């Protein structure tokens, strides 16, 4: 699976460069990382001992369709695993998506939109997904994810 499949990298290679809404390149990578999650990440990566109902493989990804913050959080986790399994340089996307997920989550909480069961579930799932990233990162002996993400946020080094 190649991260650049289905993506154009420069306006010259795009078939419709003028009609495309300008979006940050990392948002275009979300479908790739969600797909990578579906195909390559199982419950063991979340330190689950079993998953008879395929929550990690199916239900979690279904939930991402209802929440942008969860989408970013799952993409961040997927990027982290991708950086370990395939290409270490992709770790920066973990930080980018992690920060975006926190921003979206903060907005969701501040707007008091957690009034339905569905939004409560997606909000909690986002928090747990972000916590899983931290647990994974610390477990593999690479502390400082939070610091990196926060410093990225404060520098505003990427377009939100």
């Amino acid at each position, binding site marked *: 699976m190649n991260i650049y499949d289905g993506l154009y990298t420069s306006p010259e290679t795009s078939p419709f460069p003028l009609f495309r809404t300008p979006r940050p390149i990392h948002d275009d990578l979300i479908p790739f990382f969600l797909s990578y999650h579906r195909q390559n990440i199982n419950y063991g990566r979340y330190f689950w*001992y079993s998953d008879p109902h395929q929550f990690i493989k199916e*239900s979690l990804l279904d939930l991402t369709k209802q929440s942008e913050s969860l989408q970013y959080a799952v993409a961040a986790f997927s990027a982290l695993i991708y950086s370990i399994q395939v290409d270490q340089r992709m770790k920066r996307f973990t930080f980018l998506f992690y920060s975006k997920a926190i921003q979206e989550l903060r907005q969701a909480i501040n707007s008091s939109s957690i009034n339905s069961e569905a939004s*409560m579930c997606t909000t909690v799932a986002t*928090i*747990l997904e972000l916590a899983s990233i931290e647990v994974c990162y610390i477990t593999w002996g690479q502390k400082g994810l939070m610091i990196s993400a926060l410093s990225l946020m404060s520098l505003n080094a990427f377009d939100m």
Partner: protein
Amino acid sequence: MSGAAQIFQTQTNATQLCSSSLGRHLFKWYSLIEDECCLLLSCRGALPPTWRQEDFRIRKLIAASEYPLLSKDELRLRILDDVLQATLDIITAMADGLSTVPELNRATGDRRAEIIAHLESTMIYIINYVQSLRNSQLVMPLIQTFEVGFPWKSKHSTCCPELPFPPFRFAYPPAGMIFICLEAIRLYVTVHLPYIRALTRSRLSSTHLSRQPE
């Protein structure tokens, strides 16, 4: 994690959350991360233990109606999941015990005696819980083992000592995780219990000495 706990407590309750499959999965996920944090940081969980008890109760209720409908393979997977969740429920008691240790170091007099007694009773409770779970009708057949019947050979056989126990296999290999969890918890508590008992003895003897008439 305390944010997730707060959302749970303000937006729903244990019964409502654990009544849906999605809710039970979210709660399982939450419990796993909370357990890790509590054991690493020696602190109590953010949710009251009643939430886990409710999850256990509802799982048990659902099991009674759903187990007969499952195929043999599905049933074993499902039992494994339920039993492991029940095994890890004891971690709240472990975290509770661990969180009192820093206070034990600072406390004196009656308060110290209270903490020692609390720790000892918590540890005995954990050992009994693990033992009863291991001997339960659901777990016993799941962790059944059989001897391999021949000496275990590996690439380290020539350089490393032999296994300290006869090699065996699990009849249902994924259930090895239950065995490991139960053994790990039992060993952890068994190793620490004598220290607490020694503290109890030393406290009793010092009390006895101080009360002896001159």
